[in-house]
């Protein structure tokens, strides 16, 4: 699922163990999608109502798919950004700060430059992406030039980002009400809002970067063996810097979609993105130790997490058990998609 390179993959044995493990996340997603309607069916049958499995399901419907799509789109962008970093064997915890800063800068610029996409205010969109890139670049600089492990560097940069967003807003929230920008949410093509297509477009861009560009392949090289890549003449520092910068751009896109979704930009826009995105990446089958996985895995991972969150409310699970169910399902998903023979130990 990860690499669909032009002429790669010799067509050999079809159902190997490797293949099953590779497809496990998708399998989990499939099971979840069938599981929640089952609980709906059970509930109605018990209540003595007629209910044809799947057909009468409210969960298993286009409308709900669109809702899951809306919930997943911003998280997908952020998760894709961090996917590149995790493929390199590093980690980026700065997304909450970066998303907030980008959202706030976007909203300020958008309103200052006209407040509608039809004016010069559309420039706020590339401006936000530039800001994201800059944040990512600084994050990368701190990590690479000061030789601080990415976990710590990005954690601290996350504080700086949130702090910067707070400094910019003074704590106020800004509404972005331009109907054209908000058509990300309100306009639907084939039942799905525009933002879902925007997210898919960026997913394809990410896939393109991952499989068709030198930079994308170099992420895998660095994740597979950094010292070896360096000895082969690869400028690993540059790849890392570019990686963090690219992640910043995707965080910015996530911020734009998040603003598009609720029409508000604030310091809290970035909240909760950290654990959701990293969990999604791991659940999708991208290994935290680097070199394995890709953006399609991340798509599946984000969908798994979003489907669980949506499904739990839909089947009426009490709020206090939802956290535990999410936790247990995440563990299960990771267990199923881990090739235990290829890893000697895990920390």
């Amino acid at each position, binding site marked *: 699922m990860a690499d669909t390179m*032009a002429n790669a993959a010799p067509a050999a044995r079809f159902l190997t163990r490797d293949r099953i493990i590779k497809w496990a996340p998708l399998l989990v997603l499939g099971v979840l999608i069938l599981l929640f309607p089952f609980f709906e069916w059970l509930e109605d049958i018990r209540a003595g109502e007629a209910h044809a499995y799947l057909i009468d399901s409210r969960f298993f419907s286009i409308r709900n798919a669109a809702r899951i799509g809306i919930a997943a789109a911003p998280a997908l962008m952020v998760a894709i950004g961090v996917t590149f970093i995790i493929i390199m064997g590093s980690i980026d915890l700065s997304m909450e700060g970066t998303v907030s800063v980008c959202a706030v800068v976007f909203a300020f610029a958008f309103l200052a430059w006209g407040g509608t996409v039809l004016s010069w205010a559309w420039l706020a969109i590339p401006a936000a992406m530039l800001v994201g890139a800059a944040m990512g670049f600084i994050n990368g600089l701190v990590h690479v030039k000061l030789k601080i492990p990415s976990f710590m560097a990005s954690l601290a940069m996350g504080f700086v980002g949130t702090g910067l967003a707070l400094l910019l807003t003074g704590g106020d929230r800004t509404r972005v009400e331009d109907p054209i920008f908000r058509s990300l949410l309100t306009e639907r093509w084939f039942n799905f809002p525009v933002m879902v297509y925007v997210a898919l477009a960026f997913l394809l861009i990410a896939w393109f970067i991952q499989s068709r560009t*030198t930079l994308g*392949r170099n992420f895998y090289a660095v994740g597979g063996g950094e010292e070896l*890549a360096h*000895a082969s003449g*690869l400028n690993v520092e540059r790849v890392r810097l570019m990686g963090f910068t690219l992640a910043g751009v995707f965080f910015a896109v996530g911020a734009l979609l998040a603003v598009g979704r609720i029409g508000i930009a604030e310091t809290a826009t970035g909240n909760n993105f950290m654990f959701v995105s990293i969990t999604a990446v791991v659940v999708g089958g991208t290994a935290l130790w680097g*070199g*394995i996985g890709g953006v399609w895995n991340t798509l599946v991972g984000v969908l798994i997490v979003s489907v669980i969150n949506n499904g739990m409310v839909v089947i009426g699970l009490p709020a206090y058990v939802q956290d535990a169910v999410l936790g247990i399902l995440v563990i299960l998903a990771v267990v199923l998609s881990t090739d235990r023979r290829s890893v000697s130990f895990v920390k």
Partner: protein
Amino acid sequence: MYELRKVDKKFPGVHALKAVDFKVNRGEIVGLVGENGAGKSTLMKVIYGAYQPDGGTVTIDGTAVRFQNPRQAMEHGIGMVFQEQSLITNLTVMENIFLGYEARFVKFGVIDWKAMAEAARKQLAKVKLDINPATVTSELSFAQRQLIELAKVLTLEERIDGDLVILLDEPTSVLAKEEVDLLFKLVRELTNRASFIFVSHRMDEVLDLSDRVYVMKDGEVVDVVDHDAAEVDAIQHKMVGRNVDKEYYREQKQQPYGNEVLVSFDAVSAGQRYKDISFDLHRGEVLCLVGTEGSGREAILRTVFGLQTPTSGRVTIKGQPVSSFNARSSVDLGVGYVPRERKVEGIVAGMNVYENMTLSQMHNYSTAGVLKTGAEKSLARSWIERLAIKTPNENKDCGGLSGGNQQKVVLAKWRSGGSDIILLDHPTRGLDIGAKEDVYEMIRAMCDDGAGIILVADTLEEAIGLSHTILVVKDGQFQKRFDGRPGDKPSLYDLVHHMI
């Protein structure tokens, strides 16, 4: 054409290179030998740009150069063929070959995979390897990977106009005999285009291939010998600073083994790894498992150590049937394991000498879980002396010791704990002659002390020289048993015949 003059390199506490003069002529194959720690790897790193020298000059065709990183060295035609595990295994063959130099296949930011595959095929043809360039490297054998390493360096041919200098670092360690021959043939053919620097522990190979041989000791070049004048003994003498006994397996010291059975396998199988294995290991016996990579030798060792649970059959250690297979209980029964990957499995880098020595037997140096550091240290001091481990003191980080001394620490760990069933997996791998000798000496000494040893040897000569009993394994099954008393040992041919 490529020349180092009076090159110096210092690290904190170590003067690694002392005024080294080194020269490679056009089309020449230059050998480089020396004990571990003699400065070979530092010299190579200086040559391919990983280190910058502290003093002296580097010139190419008379022009002074200074490389900040390996890439700059490559741009001057200097390439390095690393040991087997330096390809990035999650990448495809072609990606590995062109890693860092993808630019020529990029059009408008897009990699043209077809063009890269085409170019990769051309490179693979140079090393006579016929595989799909889109194969993921992890699926290939070590020998294939070694050739890909060479193919990768040979991309310099197209990139660089001038002469090439290619460093070969232990390229033969994972190759079978015919693969070595193929490699050497290739190298000789390529001398019309490139010069080679060849580094190996296998003295015969160095002499076979090289036009001249540089001998290093303690950071200095102590001799330069021409191919025709080269003699193994003389070179070894210069490397070690003393004569090396031709009979360094010390066959004459081999004593007959006792009757007491330490380990007994009775029709043991472990899934696909090995089948129906039976043997007895006695006190004082060196039992050698001979076979190719993946023949099941290692799996048998791991079963004795408790890391591989058999699927059927009976394993008995010192008369006790083994029911649960885990390392702890094996260690408690006196089994000690000297793994092949010394640096990651043998010693714990970051822990000092005494901590490493007591790691497997902390219960002997503690009361109710509290360590008695004083006792640990005196143990370490006595073994440092006994095995002549070169370390300033017992508080030195083991990661900083040379390979041979690390191996001694590992052996001291087991011997000091009273282990008398010692499993040796390639115990001399990557060691130089002097250190190898020390290991052989220790193996003999352990036998004399009544230990039983199961050995998976680095070379067949070693297996023959050291063992009482040789069991040839092929595809997980025993092929043949040889009982070799001194003077009545099987020949190399006998073994290879059954192995393949």
